[in-house]
């Protein structure tokens, strides 16, 4: 799997197939049992802790439910990475935070606390925080999960716009085929720890691969079975041991 610079790449797969694990491998929070993870030519698992932290400063990550710091206001959440990693004067931090918030359309919400935000707004604040230090690479963990159709469109468009405006590389881990086909440059389909298919949105639309078809059409049964592995139905029902 390669992720070219400046592109948006989606990694798709059913729940629990290891999508988030891929992000954790890229971020160095997990170590691979086998294989390699390279970012910008550096092997992530071989980096010492200081090198890993150095690398992560150039990352932004959007967590599934935002993972905003609940004891800080929206403003402080976005200022957090700036305060931790730079010694910028307070006025400059203020201006930068307002610019990031303007980009996600929530400048008016700067003084709210995370509990006062809707799911979609929290996701946008988390996005503003992810791009606070102008990262090279942004990792999105299920950016579309649990959003209403309007927020869904807003977040999707923001990912595309921010990627192009800031020339970021984006990796979107998601199971929302419909939304991601609209914004991404390339898709990988993952199942049981393997890449089973890949292609551009056009190729995916035209694909006849059974896994891709099941995923895009949302068919309940197919290469991804409806049933969790179990002994034969008839035998289990008729057997007498409890």
């Amino acid at each position, binding site marked *: 799997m390669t992720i070219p610079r400046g592109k948006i790449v989606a990694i798709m797969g059913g729940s629990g197939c290891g999508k988030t694990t891929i992000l954790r491998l890229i*971020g160095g*929070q997990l170590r691979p049992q086998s294989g390699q993870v390279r970012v910008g030519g550096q092997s992530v698992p071989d980096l010492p802790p200081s090198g890993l*932290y*150095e690398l*992560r*400063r150039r*990352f932004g*990550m959007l*967590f*599934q*439910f935002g*993972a*905003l*710091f*609940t004891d800080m206001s929206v403003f402080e959440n976005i200022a*957090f*990475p700036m305060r*931790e*990693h730079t010694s910028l004067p307070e006025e400059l931090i203020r201006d930068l935070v307002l610019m990031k918030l303007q980009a996600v359309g929530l400048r008016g919400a700067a003084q709210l606390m995370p509990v006062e935000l809707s799911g979609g707004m929290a996701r946008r604040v988390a996005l503003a925080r992810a791009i606070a230090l102008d990262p090279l690479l942004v*990792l999105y963990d299920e950016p579309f999960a649990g959003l209403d159709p309007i927020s869904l469109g807003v977040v999707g468009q923001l990912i595309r716009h921010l990627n192009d405006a800031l020339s970021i590389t984006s990796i979107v881990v998601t199971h929302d085929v419909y939304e991601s086909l609209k914004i991404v440059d390339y898709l990988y389909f993952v199942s049981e720890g393997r890449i089973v298919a890949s292609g551009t949105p056009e190729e995916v639309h035209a694909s006849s691969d059974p896994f891709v078809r099941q995923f895009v059409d949302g068919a309940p049964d197919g290469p991804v079975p409806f049933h969790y592995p179990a002994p034969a139905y008839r035998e289990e029902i008729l057997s007498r041991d409890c």
Partner: protein
Amino acid sequence: MTAELAAGIAQWLRRLGATVTGAVSQLGFAARFLIAVLWHTPHAFRRIHLTLREIYFTGVLSLVIILMSGLFVGMVLSLQGYETLKRYGADEQLGILVALALVRELGPVISGLLFASRAGSAITAEIGLMKTTEQLAAMEMMAVDPLARVVAPRFWGGVISMPLLAALFSAAGIFGGYLVGVRLIGIDAGAFWGQMQAGVDVWPDVTNGIIKSVVFGAAVSLISVFEGYIAKPTAEGVASATTRTVVISSLAILALDFVMTAFMFRGANAA
């Protein structure tokens, strides 16, 4: 039959071994965790506002419960102490009894127990929930070490608050003892304070009490941050971590108190 018995014993031994090695590795992990927290201590003091905030949450907000409990404990001590001392005609000694009991034992121990249930449980729940909602992971991905940013300030906030709370507990207790002994029962105020001044020494009584409260503060804070940090990221995980913090802290305080008392006052008794 013998083969079955042997297999049963082998299995029992295996389970025992697994429990022991599990406990030992957990203990080793806690020790490494403590070293990591201490390693990040400079961060907690360089960014002093983080630690001050924790002192406020664990210390200042615990003041009401600490002062009220101290007052009542002192009042009860005074009532009970007077009843006993009166039999030997030593009721003038009430001041020294109340002060020694509080400064040496009850101050550090009871304020430690209250601190564990009020502040320790809150620290565990907060860190556990931060873990559950991926806030700690988010911090790591922002290249900010949660041990330095979240854990170290809370640990040191507890270590600093605890002796201050214990001192205030003892002070409130002595005042409660004065209220009951002098104002209610009518012991001479001069005798009450005079005996106390003559009988309580800065060394060993007060100093040993302070040492105890510092040790309790470090133990409770370490247990609280550790349990929060290793909590399973689920609702039940945080709930059981909070319970464990209170239970383990309370046992640790009582056990440590016995050990420290044995060392501290052995010499004093012999003399």
